[in-house]
């Protein structure tokens, strides 16, 4: 029985029998304008678990999808503040208490002379935390994704635009959702399954 499930194809065109563990229904659009207008309609219908796939950043698409502003800048701020405080503690504790060294008669606590170090560590930490924030919020790195089973999806980084509505969405219904995507102008309508 388990073997039979594994042999069923994971990617099938809409209209065929459903694949195992249905992940989503997906379709293709020709250009950024088409995917943008489709996204506005899907947003207005109240879908939550869905996404658009584009080869480049389409300006305004996040708003057309009803997304909130990205959270990444807060990671930058947190990283910067953390770096600043951390560097201050490192520099002051070592220079004033742990290893006080009298060099050139400079005071142990010489804030102006510490500024470059504080600034640079702050910059370093804010950059690292921004990137970690971006990858975390984008659920990266990722070694596998159900969409990669679909050969047509290889063009999502080249010249095609995709809309994918996941089966997790409360408003999802195999037939009605596929019909919706068709009405919005989507082509190559496909059901995507998932392993296990």
């Amino acid at each position: 029985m388990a073997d039979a499930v594994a042999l069923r194809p994971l990617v099938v065109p809409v209209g065929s029998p459903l694949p195992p563990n249905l992940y989503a229904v997906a379709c293709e659009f020709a250009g950024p304008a088409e995917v943008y207008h489709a996204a506005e309609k899907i947003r207005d219908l109240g879908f939550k678990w869905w996404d658009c796939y584009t080869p480049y950043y389409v300006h305004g698409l996040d708003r057309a999808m009803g997304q909130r502003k990205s959270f990444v800048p807060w990671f930058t701020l947190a990283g910067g503040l953390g770096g600043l405080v951390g560097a201050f503690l490192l520099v002051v504790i070592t220079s004033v208490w742990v290893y006080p060294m009298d060099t050139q008669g400079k005071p142990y606590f010489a804030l102006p002379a510490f500024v470059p170090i504080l600034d640079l560590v702050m910059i370093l930490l804010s950059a690292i935390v921004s990137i970690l924030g971006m990858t975390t919020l984008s659920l990266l790195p990722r070694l596998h994704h159900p969409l990669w089973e679909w050969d047509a999806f290889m063009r999502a980084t080249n010249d095609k635009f995709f809309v994918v509505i996941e089966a997790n969405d409360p408003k999802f219904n195999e037939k009605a959702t596929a019909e919706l995507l068709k009405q919005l102008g989507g082509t190559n309508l496909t059901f995507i399954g998932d392993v296990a």
Partner: protein
Amino acid sequence: MPAFPPNAAQTQEPPDVALARAGLEREPYVSNGHNAVWVGDRIAAVIQNPAPTWWWVCLFIALGLAGFTGLGLIYLITTGVGVWGENRAANWAWDITNFVFWIGIGHAGTMIAAVLYLTRQRWATGINRAAEAMTIFAVMCAGIYPAVHVGRVWFAWYLAPIPNGNAIWPNFRSPLLWDVFAVSTYLSVSIMFWYVGLIPDAAAMRDRVQNKIGKYFYAMFCLGWRGSARQWANYEFCYLMLAGIATLLVISTCTVVSSDFSTSVIPGWHGTIFIPYFGVGAIYGGFCMLIILLVPIRQFYKLEDIITLRHIDLCCRFTLLMALLITYIYGMEFFIAYYGGSPNERHTFFYDRIRGPYWLTWYAMIFANSIIVQLFWMKKVRRNPWLAFCIVLVPSVGMWLERYVIIVVSVTRDYLPSSWGMFYPTWVDIMTFAGTFGVFFLLYLLFIRFLPVIAISEVRGALPEANPHHAPVVLAHDAPETDVTEVHHG
């Protein structure tokens, strides 16, 4: 109401107005009306086509040249810093000159990638990747010198804030320690900025290449990027934040590098002008190096429609702007030496620099940095890539001479005439420096072979068709006959 705003052909404009309108129109970022698919194919072709013969020839030349640095460093480390020409008068000479020269080239790359991004100069999408790569490799070349000039490189780890058993700790009040932090942070953040920019392009390459090793490499490199709109929204914000951070960092780094000099009391160094001086000089030298890299790349890989003549033109204009600024700073140094009233400063500038033993270097510097670039006032020169290439070779040398003048001319003539002297480079100095060009070009050649030399997704995003609200312009002969506006054929 017509469906689209009437264009020049539809509304009957007087010819002079039409001409003025044509003059105001910007050149497109990608010329000859190529679309997003063409952009991807052409840039990926650089990687996917077999390496051209010239690439192999250049690679072996660069490899051979890089060997000089390797040999020079091995000889230095096994023998001692005495193999360099440094002496009591000139404790710093070619090592720090070369360090400032290379780090300066790095600054321009960040300037192009980050500052032009923040200021919404979207033409820079065509050249920012090449510029960022230049930054990283130039900073790597720069980093060699501070690491080895300490003499006993096996103690270089003392510079890092690591707890140790010697009851000593780095002196955070010293500009030389700031330098360690600045250069290492600069290298790290430049690599991160470059890497983040590469993620979507690596994904595009993953979906494009057929061979298994290549696919695996790009799939790992892009972290499993899918290009979902939710990912793009976070990605764009991250890139924006990194551009802001990199801008701050480039200012911090050139401030720290200039502080190595200006916090000391050597005549000719002890000036507040050093921060803008180093910043401008850095960007100047870097733009020259960028033109040197872009002109052959666009020609040999047939990327003229992406790195257009306009890009070369704009780089030349930046070079000219920086030349004017640096000329102003050269003048201001003399003015402050005169106006400041310090006899030592006056002696440094009005005697040592222009009449002292190194007078020829100073005049060569002025010719290379201030005079030759004035040719870029002419549009014909700016729009002739190979001519621009030949011209910027001169200020590239000039920027090295500038650092040589600042460092060697100042340290060989300080306050105490009995310690005055001269500096002569040894063959190890020359070999090690010549080799850094090999290291730089070797890394650069490998970069253009394996990673997209132009940011594919960014250039695509800057095309007019990428705007979801873009309406194709209706040409007069395509417009429907029933349009209410009067249509003129022909």
